[in-house]
């Protein structure tokens, strides 16, 4: 792997890091499999692209995307809690609705940001580093700031209720806390992070596209699982950092797959998905294999 490919993987890993943290919050903490993300990622991209094209600052554009994502997640939460629609179905409904909404927001399926000022350009000028180093650094810093805020939040009283909702709904209800509100807020928070990620991704790749959300949940879940397998999830702080690093490892796996050359053994670019899946499976089973191997030796 070249250094460009490595830093490219870091860049993508951190850019999608907030998305992965969002998926972690719903999937692991709230026990809520949320497919809204396939729609809220392009939602964040669309909102930020329209805001930038309309002349707003790229930072404000990111914040507007965060807000839009929060609302989208709340809709899924409300459909689930207030209207008793199964969480998976509720999130699918929001996701497909967002497809049309994103088309409405942009007025077209693809909005170019080439040549527009973005947060990536701003940070690049600020640091004076080469873009391939400054961009992953920027996304890393943003992810760390968000993780710190989340760690603080999850140690407040509200945060405890949030953490406990997925574990033991009855206990929380007996404490006089309305779990519906916690779920609505939690799915909102998760999608706010996903949309923020979408806004950053769009500003980085030079375009928002209505189809850019395809496969977001798959990447998110794979990253979460890789992260917790490799880095552990004993405490919430550790789990959040593991999710972020899982996102980076997932992208490194893809970079490896992209650069794979096996000479005569004919692997073609069309095998990318298969290779990626295989690499992820390896990442998943390696720690277990190691455990088994060590257990076998000590016996």
């Amino acid at each position, binding site marked *: 792997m070249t250094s460009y490919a490595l830093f490219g993987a870091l860049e*993508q890993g951190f850019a999608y890091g907030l998305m992965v943290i969002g998926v972690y919050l719903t999937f692991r903490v709230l026990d809520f499999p949320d497919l809204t993300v396939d729609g809220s990622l392009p939602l964040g991209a669309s909102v930020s692209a329209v805001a930038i094209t309309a002349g707003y600052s790229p930072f404000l554009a990111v914040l507007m995307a965060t807000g839009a994502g929060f609302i989208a997640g709340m809709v899924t939460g409300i459909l689930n809690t207030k209207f008793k629609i199964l969480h998976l179905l509720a999130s699918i409904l929001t996701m497909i609705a967002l497809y049309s909404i994103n088309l409405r927001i942009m007025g077209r399926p693809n909005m170019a940001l080439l040549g527009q000022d973005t947060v990536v350009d701003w940070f690049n000028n600020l640091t004076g580093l080469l873009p391939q180093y400054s961009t992953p650094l920027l996304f890393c810093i943003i992810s760390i700031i968000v993780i710190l805020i989340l760690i603080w939040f999850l140690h407040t009283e509200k945060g405890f209720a949030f953490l406990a909702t997925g574990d033991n709904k009855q206990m929380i209800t007996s404490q006089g806390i309305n779990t519906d509100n916690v779920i609505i807020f939690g799915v909102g928070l998760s999608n706010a992070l996903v949309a923020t990620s979408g806004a950053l991704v769009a500003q980085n*790749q*030079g375009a928002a596209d*209505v189809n850019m959300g395809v496969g977001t949940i798959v990447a998110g879940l794979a990253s979460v699982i890789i992260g917790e397998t490799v880095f552990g999830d004993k405490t919430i702080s550790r789990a959040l950092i593991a999710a972020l690093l899982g996102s980076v490892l997932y992208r490194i796996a893809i970079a490896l797959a992209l*650069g794979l050359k096996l000479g005569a053994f004919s692997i073609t670019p069309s095998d990318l998905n298969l290779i990626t899946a295989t690499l992820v499976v390896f990442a998943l089973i390696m720690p277990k294999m190691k455990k088994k191997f060590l257990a076998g030796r000590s016996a």
Partner: protein
Amino acid sequence: MKKILLTMAALLLLTAPSFAGDHYTVSVTQIVEHPALDAIRNGVIDRLKEKGIDATFNVHIAQGNSATNVQIISQIKGEEPDLVLAIATPGAQAAAQKIKDRPIVFTGVTDPVSAGLVKDLKNSGNGNVTGMSDFSPMDKHVALIKEIVPSVKTIGVIYNAGEPNSVVLVNALTEQATLVGLGVEEATVANSSGVYQAAKSLVGRCDVVYIPTDNTVISAVESAVKVCSQNKLPLIVADVDSVARGAIAAVAVDYYRMGLQTGDMAAKILADGVKAGDMPVEFLNDLKLHVNKKAAAAMGVTLPEDIIARADKVIE
């Protein structure tokens, strides 16, 4: 012996620079594997070979994934190619955003200006990007529709509103149809399983169905063929492959020929040292006409003799 070796070494050293100058690396980014896009790629590769340009091609395909599409650009930067070939809009946009120091040739992009790739089609010398548009010649498509169905008043069109290219094409269709006094009825789909329903919704609302070069709809063109045959509604398409699959006719861009022409542009940059930013965006005017007699009969249309006579391919 030593002398011979020395002479050989000296000769090698002398000839080495010209050897080094003759070999090029071309990195290819392509969003998805697709017959039309693959044909373009093969066209470029074949044309460079024909021209005697010795090039290694590193082909990357994102399998439709937006994140991988961007990651491929980092991969390409590491390959330090002499030229980046970007097939279809998403790859071209990511390449243009991230790579400023080497020439990028895009191809298979319908509207390079609204995609932000070039400021205008003349591409007045600012930047490292040039390429080819596969914009369908809509005037020729509408003319073909009128020739095959002279009584046409309204054209029904099926497309995916989520495909950037399709939206541009349908706007162009509407513009061209209005110009010749025809109406347009739209039916949109979100995925290929919606094509059957969309085609049915057009029955009674139009006199002919037209399908642009829309990836989603074309992948399920058989559904439209079925509905149109059952309802004696002529189906005319924008790609020749769909004619063999049951549409009546298409006058279309030949993607392989498009690749050849893109290959010419790449050769100019590689071998002749022309700056990409100095080259205007090119279009393909070399079109193919395919007709399907059986499909025409099934949809209640008799193909005019002169269309059959001038067709590149007639399916009986």
